């Protein structure tokens, strides 16, 4: 440091060089200082000031959530009806396969359902990608791997599984091999299911569904019928608790289904319902005021119009009161009641009930009613007892629910919902109460006695329709026997319909195949088994409150009319 005062003086070139060096040094120093200042500023910014866009707490990687392929479908209690599982699918790159013939042969030893010749053709094709088999089981995958054939690869694919098998086949539907819904709810909610993670809640109750299917199957077997449909509907919300159509299919084995089994008789099939329509006919006449519970009609003689004769199956050949017309299912009386309301009134009432359009049910398989056009007086007469207007069983159940629940029609639905739709009033509360009495009467004394279930105050109506034959006529031997019921009748909660297609009489039924013999016993058993599950408490039907609610003044059997008529 002591040499500092002795300044070295340099002249000329040397001085110049040192000056240049110093200048450069200063410049470099400035640049480095600037760089450090920037880094320092950044350090201060990051550590002290902080970045507001940075999350304070570590968040879970959204990819860590399970991708389920296609959302599940569950019943109202959350039991699985449809789910997707990841399964390996086998494909090949034919360019990598050395010996197509041998590879195909060896593959067929572990995958018995593939055809060696077809597979060999696939393996010797020019493409770079051929599917060999979709959705293998883990065991099959293991076996294919252990063959060690080059050029075979696996790709994980989603496979739709229906754990309940055929039980909910028609409601849930199924998907094709590429996971697109092609029937049932799978199709109508395809977009929701494909995008969503949350399961789709149906209103179906699996336990009741099972009971309905079992009882329906039993009736079909007993009466050698070709099929049938069964529906249980919540009368106050329009939710479908059970919906069965038989014969049915197993949605887990696509491609092997008989087209006949795919047909949904409960929603797609439209049928002339027969006498169950008298529920609507009577409600219409009572609500229009053209008939009262005390009025009566002359049912002595059959009605002849054009080439038809309208007769009674349980002919009494006398004057019948409105309750008797309903109880004995008198066609003549019903026709006269309908004629009093008139053609236009009947058409308007049927439209209000939703009988002229498709139901609101969330299925692609919805039958369009066959409505007479033009609606002539003869149609008015036949529709009075359920011929000439063909509707699906779902229409019928929805209509009956509206008639018994106090007169509010709500769209039928397959989805569980907390808030029922407000609905639309179609008949008055008083008419609805009278209809409850009449339906109870049918089960107590009329054609539906076999539907009675101790404790549950069942009311209903039988229906036995002859199926329409080839040329506008009717096949007298092929019947459509049904019973539609509601319970408990003092405050209806559920509507049950059982319909059996072409039953044959048995020795036990004395050769009868009518709704009262074929469908009513099944309804009774369904109610007895499912009411405890549905939380309907049994009551004593003889208790004074219920007697009062469901009492009807009737003339004594024997034809004498009461003075009050």
């Amino acid at each position, binding site marked *: 440091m002591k040499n500092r005062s002795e300044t070295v003086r340099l002249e000329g070139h040397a001085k110049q060089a040192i000056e240049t060096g110093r200048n450069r040094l200063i410049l470099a120093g400035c640049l480095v200082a600037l760089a450090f200042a920037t880094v320092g500023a950044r350090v201060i910014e990051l550590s002290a000031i902080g970045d507001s866009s940075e999350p304070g707490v570590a968040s879970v990687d959204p990819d860590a959530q399970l991708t389920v392929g296609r959302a599940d479908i569950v019943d109202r209690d959350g039991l699985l009806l449809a789910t997707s599982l990841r399964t390996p699918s086998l494909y090949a790159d034919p360019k990598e396969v050395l010996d197509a013939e041998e590879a195909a042969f060896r593959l067929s030893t572990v995958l018995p359902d593939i055809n060696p010749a077809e597979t060999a053709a696939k393996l010797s094709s020019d493409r770079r990608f051929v599917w060999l088999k979709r959705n293998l089981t883990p065991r099959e995958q293991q076996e294919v791997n252990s063959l060690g054939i080059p050029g075979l690869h696996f790709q994980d694919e989603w496979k739709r599984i229906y754990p309940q098998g055929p039980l909910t086949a028609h409601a849930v539907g199924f998907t094709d091999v590429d996971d697109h819904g092609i029937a049932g709810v799978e199709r109508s909610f395809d977009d929701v299911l494909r995008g969503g993670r949350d399961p789709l809640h149906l209103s179906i109750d699996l336990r009741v569904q099972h009971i309905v299917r079992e009882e329906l199957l*039993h009736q079909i077997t007993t009466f050698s019928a070709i099929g049938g449909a069964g529906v249980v509907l919540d009368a106050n919300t329009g939710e479908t608790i059970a919906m069965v159509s038989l014969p049915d299919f197993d949605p887990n084995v696509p491609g092997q289904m008989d087209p006949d089994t795919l047909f949904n008789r409960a929603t797609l099939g439209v049928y002339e319902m027969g006498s169950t329509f008298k529920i609507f006919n009577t409600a219409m006449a009572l609500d229009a005021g053209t008939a009262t519970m005390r009025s009566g009609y002359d049912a002595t003689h059959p009605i002849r119009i054009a080439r038809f004769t309208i007769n009674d199956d349980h002919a009494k050949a006398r004057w019948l009161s409105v309750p008797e017309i309903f109880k004995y299912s008198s066609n003549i009386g019903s026709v006269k009641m309908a004629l009093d309301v008139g053609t236009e009134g009947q058409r308007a009432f049927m439209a209000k009930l939703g009988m002229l359009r498709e139901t609101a049910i969330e299925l692609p398989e919805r039958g369009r009613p066959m409505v007479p056009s033009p609606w002539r007086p003869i149609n008015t007469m036949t529709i009075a007892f359920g011929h000439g207007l063909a509707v699906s069983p779902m229409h019928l159940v929805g209509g009956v629910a509206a008639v018994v629940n106090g007169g509010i029609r709500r769209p039928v639905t397959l989805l569980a919902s907390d808030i029922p739709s407000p609905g639309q009033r179609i008949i008055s509360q008083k008419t609805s109460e009278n209809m409850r009495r009449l339906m109870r009467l049918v089960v107590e004394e009329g054609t539906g006695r076999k539907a009675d279930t101790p*404790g549950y105050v069942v009311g209903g109506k039988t229906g036995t329709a002859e199926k329409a034959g080839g040329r506008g006529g009717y096949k007298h031997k092929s019947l459509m026997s049904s019973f539609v019921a509601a319970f408990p009748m003092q405050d209806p909660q559920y509507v049950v319909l059982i319909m059996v297609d072409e039953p044959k009489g048995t020795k036990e039924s004395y050769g009868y195949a009518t709704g009262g013999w074929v469908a009513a016993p099944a309804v009774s058993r369904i109610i007895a088994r499912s009411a405890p599950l549905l939380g309907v408490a049994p009551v004593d039907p003889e208790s004074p409150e219920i007697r009062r609610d469901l009492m009807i003044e009737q003339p004594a059997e024997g034809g004498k009319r009461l003075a009050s008529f």
Partner: protein
Amino acid sequence: MRRSTILWFLIATCLGVALFLVKHEVQRREEQLAALHRQILASQEAIHVLEAEWSYLNRPDRIEALVRRHLNLVPLETKRIGSLEMLPMRLPVPDSGDGGTGADGTVPPTLAALPPLPVGRPLVLTREVRR
């Protein structure tokens, strides 16, 4: 000068080592997190498969067949369902001070002296297979 240089050098080395350790730790934890995520996914998928299997094994028809084979259960009859109002009136308790049983669990002598209540017939559930 030299002392401060050494100090700064030490600080820098310490910071460097600390930074290295922290970075290493973060990396390790990130790997751990990813592993946990993979594990969660695998578990979720396993749960999913098990749920499907559970529903498959709980099919109502299978349960019903098993019940018929192994248990004496029959469908609930309507007459077995009752309400509180259907119960008979409670026996009036004499000297109702402690309400029936004494504090020590013994039956008060007044109740014990009453004739024994009729014992209901034991419920016999038969193997009633429908149809």
